[in-house]
């Protein structure tokens, strides 16, 4: 039987859907019987949601035209000094990821 401390330690993995099945069942059973842990997991769920919303909500102010213009100019001229630095730091193909 899991203690409340055990459940709290597993809350992240539960909400990230990363708990093995047997542990998930044990945690769910505990949550059905324990108001304290149910409240804690509720707090964690709200924290995750608000964190994602807060990060999404923070958009940058519109860029100055000269800032955008400088970036566009560098992107169009691969021989420029700054641009060479950009390419040198492209250590790996960022799109070459085992996804999809």
């Amino acid at each position, binding site marked *: 039987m899991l*203690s*409340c*401390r*055990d459940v*709290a*330690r597993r809350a*992240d993995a539960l909400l990230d859907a*990363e708990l093995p099945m047997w542990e998930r069942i044990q945690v769910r059973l505990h949550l059905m019987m324990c*108001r*304290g*842990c149910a*409240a*804690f997991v*509720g*707090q*964690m769920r*709200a*924290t*995750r949601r*608000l*964190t*994602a*919303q*807060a*990060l*999404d*909500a*923070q*958009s*940058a*102010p*519109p*860029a100055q035209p000269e*800032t*955008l213009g*400088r*970036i*566009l100019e*560098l*992107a169009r001229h*691969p021989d420029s000094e*700054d*641009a060479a*630095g*950009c*390419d*040198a*730091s*492209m*250590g*790996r*193909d*960022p*799109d070459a*990821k085992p*996804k*999809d």
Partner: protein
Amino acid sequence: VLEEQEALIDRLRKQDEQAFAEVYKIYSSSLLRLSMSIVRNKSTAEDLVQETWVSVLRSIDRFEGRSSFRAWIFTILVNKARTRLRRDNRLVAFDEGGPDSGLDAGFDGRGKWAQMPALWDNVTAERIVEGRSLLAHVNAIIDELPPAQRAVLIMRSQGDLEPGEICALLDLSDGNMRVLLHRARQSVRLALDQLLAEKS
């Protein structure tokens, strides 16, 4: 939303400057925050964000949509930041986690809650507390996190990256990444709990 993003990326491929202004507005704030978390210097962080945008514009034809667009630009930025730190001999282990979350102190000797957690009612993004929205409070709390915690939290919350990809990018073990994420989330939860308790 996905279709809108695909349309935006198509316009970027066609070198539509207005499309670039739009993606810049959407992603630059997150990029700068992540960059600051890694290089810990505002001027360098801003340079890296600019370099990232240059690379994004040059490489956009190679973006095949196998990852999300945000994950793709986050990956470009982190690779650039680590290259810059290595070049400047400033690359250090990215695993200092800050203080322990303190979660264990909330339990008695038998592992039961010493004090029951509060039920959070009406905890919505729109709720105003102390004159500003909860989202503004959360953003302020995130900015106060130790840099490594902040970087992992941003990448896990926003980057659409798999845990293994984040570990590889930041050169972290899976265990360290989970500790950093746990501590970051607990810090945000505790700060919100205190804020909400003061107002109830």
